[in-house]
């Protein structure tokens, strides 16, 4: 052994643990590497970092992660890495010995040792039991079949993801918080989900009948089947699960059954060790069990007759525990809990007691059109419970009043309208609302962070959402308190806030990526629907979000979505480019930059007939006719159409031009028919709507006369084939393309072009050109999707061509034929002679 230099290296874990000979500190052994166990250690370190030597045993083979975030992992919104609370470095930096994947199997209180499954024996001075809960498995036939699981840890999530990959049907038994989050995740993963719930109301422990009903209809609207009042008789299957049979004889086929009917405190270890156990392990106010050297926190304990199944109480318990272990006894007084459902787009909140009863009064607000239901239960002028559905912004405020047992007699009449109204003013200023919260009001329920803690974190110099998330964890988990944290930033810093992931616009707290994901996940079909489901804060959005939503829906629902003209910028509505004097410029399409006498004659005629003051050759090899009045546009288009020309889309977030050089047909250097390929590509891609403008070019040899390497998609022909380049643009910040790959045939060049275009259409944010998009996601990612994944490329290409089958109508021809004439004409011209 080599501890001679007096340092105390972290002990290696072989059989038992090795302790540096000079470490005389008391040894704290923690059983359970979960949320409570690790939080207890964090609290202890914050008070007196050197006092105890710490060893943590964990049954799961992972570092400490945020269990409540398993739901977003299942839903595909987070990865495991993103929900880790303390990584390896944390254990190492704090000299904590982590023994993961090796559960403790016995405690010998006489010898003060614990023994683990692998046979390790470790002595302790203080023992902390934080074993959490075990999922309750209903004792029906078939409960042990492969494919029947619970929803408690990362392993369960892995099993569900594997099952979802196979597709098919899943049954979730239990319509509580956990069951509904499992059902939501599995639905998003593409499974057909049925929820079986014994009671008549979903989440009956948190919701009353009215809110439960609203929730049920919303979930059914998302394609889940919800069976309430349904009693499971058996799970059937031959060698693996095949379905669930109800008492009334109904059978529901399923390849996966998730039991989420409740949890039981994990007390076996404590019971065998002879500790006093009732429903949970009995503890006093300092979290000490019947043995003064054995402590316990988390879901496994029973305090004052109460057992908890949510995280908020753990934070209070861990504070009292750490106070006790560092001789500053404070004492735990029990917790009042509140609940939120973590299903995107469904806001459900409940707190306290809403069963009604003697002396209780209900204050109820329903707004059917907004899908809002609020109920506050008041007893003796104090709030004792609240149920909110659809609009939960005031949840924190009600909960704060409830916990502080505030007298609400004065504001009773306005209470139900929420904090902004009830605290006077009337104006709904969310900043004033958070400013008015008390310092110990809870902001982040997932991580137990109070307003006071967030404010001091900001005052310590963390001036952005990301910095706050990193330093005090507020809003770092489910994100439902992001709005509150942003408002606190604004209150503390005034206008100097550096915001984190940018929200789409001021009408929403969601980012572009969030909105896009939810549009697809919830199969939203119109702009008003998106705004309703995602709680837009304005009645009909603004000039930033409306065009973006219109595009996202158009891209998600080709052929189905009805374009909203009023959500398009003027150029796309008028199919021409507005100029600074309010007139328009018109650019007819010239395939690959080719033209002919007939087209040129038609253009010349239009210029003369409509007195266009200027014609110019554009950078994209087209002719631009300037100074056309909006009233004349349909007539101009009719004339151009007559000569066979269609809209050049020089005005749109769309394919602009395919620029070509003369190539092998004429040029002595040319290696391939660049002009011909350019024309084919333009015929394939024209008319497509994009997140931003999109330019293509094809050069016949590396001399690159068509400047293909500053285009969104560029082809440079070489002797042996075609080099494909992506992500370039001219403009203020010139960016040369990245080489995507080289292909051998013209057909492949076309296929890769279609696939790349579709990837950009589906994944870039609105108004993000290919250059910043590729810098954001990395060219390796693009290669992995387009070059390395043959099936994926083919699918993208097919989706592009499918979408194109609806978009290659010439908008000019429709307008020239009279469509939407009102856009070009004033209301009845009024001739009132000056008097």
């Amino acid at each position, binding site marked *: 052994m080599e501890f001679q230099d007096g340092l105390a290296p972290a002990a290696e874990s072989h059989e038992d643990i090795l302790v540096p000979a000079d470490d005389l500190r008391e040894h704290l052994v923690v059983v359970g590497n979960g949320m409570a166990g690790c939080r207890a250690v964090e609290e202890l370190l914050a008070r007196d970092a050197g006092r105890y030597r710490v060893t943590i045993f964990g049954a799961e083979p992972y570092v400490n992660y945020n269990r409540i975030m398993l739901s977003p992992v299942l839903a595909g919104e987070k990865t495991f890495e993103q929900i880790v609370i303390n990584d390896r470095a944390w254990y190492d930096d704090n000299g904590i010995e982590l023994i993961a994947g090796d559960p403790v199997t016995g405690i010998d209180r006489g010898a003060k040792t614990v023994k683990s499954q692998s046979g390790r024996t470790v002595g302790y001075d203080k023992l902390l039991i934080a074993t959490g809960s075990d999922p309750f498995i209903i004792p029906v036939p078939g409960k042990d079949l492969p494919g029947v699981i619970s929803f408690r840890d990362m392993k369960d999530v892995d099993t569900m993801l594997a099952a979802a990959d196979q597709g098919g049907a899943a049954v979730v038994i239990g319509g509580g918080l956990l069951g509904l989050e499992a059902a939501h995740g599995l639905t998003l993963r593409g499974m057909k989900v049925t929820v079986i719930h014994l009671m008549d109301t979903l989440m009956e422990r948190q919701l009353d009948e009215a809110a439960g009903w609203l929730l049920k209809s919303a979930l059914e609207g998302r394609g889940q089947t919800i069976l309430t009042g349904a009693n499971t008789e058996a799970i059937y299957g031959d060698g693996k699960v095949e379905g669930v049979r109800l008492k009334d004889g109904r059978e529901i086929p399923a390849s996966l059954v998730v039991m989420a009917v409740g949890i039981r405190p994990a007390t076996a270890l404590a019971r065998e060790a002879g500790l006093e156990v009732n429903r949970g392990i009995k503890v006093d106010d300092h979290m000490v069990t019947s043995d003064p050297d054995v402590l316990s926190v988390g879901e496994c304990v029973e305090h004052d007759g109460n057992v908890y199944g949510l995280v908020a109480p753990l934070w209070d318990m861990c504070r009292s525990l750490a106070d006790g272990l560092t001789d500053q006894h404070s004492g735990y007084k029990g917790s009042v809990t509140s609940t939120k459902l973590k299903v995107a787009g469904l806001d459900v909140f409940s707190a306290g007691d809403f069963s009604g009863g003697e002396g209780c009064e209900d204050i109820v607000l329903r707004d059917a059109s907004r899908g809002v239901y609020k109920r506050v239960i008041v007893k003796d002028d104090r709030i004792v419970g609240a149920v909110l559905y659809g609009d939960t912004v005031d949840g924190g405020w009600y909960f704060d009043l409830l916990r502080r047992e505030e007298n609400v007699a004065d504001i009773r009449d306005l209470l139900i309208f929420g904090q902004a109204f009830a605290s006077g003013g009337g104006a709904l200023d969310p900043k004033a609302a958070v400013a008015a919260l008390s310092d110990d009001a809870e902001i982040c329920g997932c991580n137990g962070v109070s307003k006071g803690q967030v404010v001091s974190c900001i005052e310590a110099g963390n001036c952005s959402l990301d910095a706050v998330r990193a330093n005090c964890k507020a809003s770092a988990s489910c994100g439902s308190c992001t709005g509150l944290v942003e408002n606190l930033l604004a209150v503390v810093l005034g206008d100097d806030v550096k915001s984190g992931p940018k929200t789409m616009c001021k009408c929403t707290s969601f980012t572009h990526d969030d909105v896009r994901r939810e549009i697809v996940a919830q199969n939203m079909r119109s702009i008003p629907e998106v705004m309703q489901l995602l709680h837009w804060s304005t009645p009909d959005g*603004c000039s930033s979000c409306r065009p973006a939503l219109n595009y996202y829906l158009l891209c998600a629902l080709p052929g189905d979505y009805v374009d909203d*003209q*009023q959500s398009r910028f*003027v150029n796309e*509505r008028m199919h021409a480019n507005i100029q600074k004097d*309010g007139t328009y410029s018109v650019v007819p399409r010239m395939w690959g930059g080719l033209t002919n006498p007939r087209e040129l004659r038609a253009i010349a005629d239009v210029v003369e007939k409509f007195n266009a003051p200027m014609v110019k050759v554009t950078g994209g090899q087209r002719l631009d006719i300037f100074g056309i009045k909006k009233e004349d546009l349909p007539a101009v288009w009719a004339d151009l159409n007559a000569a066979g020309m269609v809209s050049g889309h020089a005005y749109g977030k769309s394919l602009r031009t395919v620029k070509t050089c003369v190539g092998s047909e004429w040029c002595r250097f040319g290696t391939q028919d660049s002009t011909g390929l350019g024309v084919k590509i333009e015929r394939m891609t024209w008319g497509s709507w994009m997140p931003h403008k999109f330019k293509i070019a094809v050069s016949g040899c590396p001399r690159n006369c068509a400047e293909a390497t500053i285009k969104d998609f560029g082809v440079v022909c070489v002797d042996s084939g075609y080099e494909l380049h992506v992500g370039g643009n001219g403009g203020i910040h010139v960016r040369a393309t990245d080489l995507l790959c080289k292909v051998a045939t013209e057909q492949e060049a076309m296929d890769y072009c279609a696939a790349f275009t579709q990837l950009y259409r589906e994944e870039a944010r609105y108004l993000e050109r290919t250059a910043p998009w590729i810098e954001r996601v990395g060219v390796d990612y693009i290669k992995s999707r387009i070059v390395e994944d043959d099936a994926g490329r083919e699918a993208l290409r097919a989706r592009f061509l499918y979408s194109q089958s609806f978009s290659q109508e010439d908008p000019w021809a429709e307008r020239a034929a009279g469509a939407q004439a009102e856009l070009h004409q004033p*209301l009845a011209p009024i*001739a009132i002679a000056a008097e």
Partner: protein
Amino acid sequence: MTDWIDIGTLADIPQRGARTVQIAGEKEIAVFRTGDDHVFALVNECPHKKGPLSQGIVHGHSVACPLHNWNIALKTGEAQGADEGCTPTIAVRMDGERILIARPVAMQAAA
């Protein structure tokens, strides 16, 4: 006494859209219909660089100018946010489905 001119019906203007009215000798007028079917009229010129407001995106009771995205309040004609400027408003009255605007007497007198 205000003199009112009938310029058409609500249905002539798309929701969240605008149409223009041309009166001989007057500046063009933009008549807006909002998402909640209120009707407003402004001179069709942005206070910034005279952008045609009738071509902007109408949201809430504002319009975003098509040229440089200033937001103009439909009720007052004032630029919102950090921008400053004001476009003249024209009084509007609804008579059932029909839209009436005030005859611009003042302008004529000034002319």
